């Protein structure tokens, strides 16, 4: 982990911890395997992007750029976002 990320740790939470309507900027990804990481990258879940969580159940739905994506809990846990207002 890079130093700066450690400093931000308090306000950085997994996407799965946001409440609906909660906003954040993607800080880093901590996927279980290479293929999990690849999946997230392929839909554009990349550090620096802004997300808004729309829904938590039965799947996680979030806005990213001009589109919406649905992901399961496993993937939502591996996206770390810096909470923004």
């Amino acid at each position, binding site marked *: *982990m*890079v130093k700066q990320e450690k400093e931000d740790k308090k306000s950085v939470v997994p996407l799965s911890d946001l409440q609906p309507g909660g906003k954040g900027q993607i800080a880093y990804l901590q996927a279980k395997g290479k*293929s999990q990481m690849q999946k997230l*990258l392929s839909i554009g879940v990349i550090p620096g992007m802004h997300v808004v969580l729309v*829904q938590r159940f039965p799947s996680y739905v979030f806005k990213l750029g001009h589109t*919406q994506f*649905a992901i399961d809990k496993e993937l939502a846990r591996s996206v770390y976002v810096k909470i923004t207002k």
Partner: protein
Amino acid sequence: MLRDFVKNIGYDDPLEASLSKIEGLLLSDYRISKRSVALLILQEDPDISEAVRNRESAESAKEIFAIAGELKTHYSYPLTYIITERRQREASRISSAATTVTKKGSLGIREAVSSAMMNPFIGGPILLAVMYYGLYKFVGNFGAGVLVDFLEDKVFDHYLNPLVAGLVDKYVPWAMLGDLIAGDYGVVTLGFRYAFAIIMPIVATFFLAFAVIEDSGYLPRLAMLVDQIFKKIGLSGRAVIPLVLGLGCSTMATMVTRTLPTKRERIIATLLLALAIPCSAQMGVILALLESRPLGLIVWLSVIMGVFLVVGYLASKIMPGELPSFYMEIPPLRFPQVSNVLRKTASRMKWYFLEVLPLFMFASVLIWIGKITGIFGFFVRILEHPVRWIGLPSEASVAFLFGFFRRDYGAAGLYDLKTEGLLTGNQLVVACVTLTLFLPCIAQLLMNIKERGMKIGIAMSAFILFFSFSIGWTVSILLSISGLSL
């Protein structure tokens, strides 16, 4: 040493330096730019890495992978991550320079409908409504009812069949050949008639309904809704698309399982399509068989759904491999566009006629050969045993054998038995359950083998043969113990 080289070049960016070093080492032609090849190598793309190993000299290949390996040590994240991030940054820069975002107009209703579809409580009733109007009303009543009646009774029975029979009588001297063309199971009287008068209207209305649903953006919303349930049967929500398509034509749906990301998911989906997803042609006849027996229909539906869930659950426990993960874009809802809907329907119909129709004709020929050689009678007699075990009259065994060549033939054979009054309500339900689960039609069997390989395709079919009769037997025993009369 390499690090020194990077510095020598004067780049402050090790990624860029490694790229140009690798580009310089690539001598073969890969049909894409050397830079793309180099980028793919750095991202550890298995196909490109393999190609590079094969086409470059052992020495340069070694050096190339050494550069890639060394570059990795510069970053705390995989190179894919770094490369994607840079691309995204550049794309964002371009797009923000070239576009202006205006306040969006009235998306109120659309967003409300969209979130209703994704709501776990309202989403269920919406799914039922889509199934009821799209499948039952439009495909079932209109396609399988109105259109089939018209084509069968008016076009074939009144016009085409007598015409062909007359021509054959007149010009085909050899009775057996005449039989092949216009006999009870002839290529025209049975093959063409089933393909054009029964299957075509049902499949066409289904494809039309499916295209409307697909184009509206409903399917990804359904996928996110069912993902957690599908995880229990070893699939991700994404698999809902081939499975729903399977309600139209399971053979086509088996081909569409290619869109599933892992081999494990593809095998489980193929098995469930072959076993527990009745295609539209089959469903049309089953609805007709259980027409005036709502209780029977409920028992049939519960058994099939139970089998779907239990077999899926067990398959997911037994099958090794990576667990599925779900990620899908949810595009904005929109009103289906007529041109898209027509284009999708037309391309699926074209596929159907080119790929499946010849198999139907082939099945007619097989039945003809089977009949004149007596092989057919032999198999019918073998099948009579399991058919009797599940409490059905031996006459039903013909229907089951035909069911293998075409699932709907089998169901239609049972329909004849029903109209002759040979089957009780309980027997009808047992027959419908067994026939739904029974071996897929020959087209689907061939597709299973083509998509999943000989070993898995055959093993699956053997399992289904055994399993369908076991479930039929169980249902028949349970019904007689419970004293229910459906």
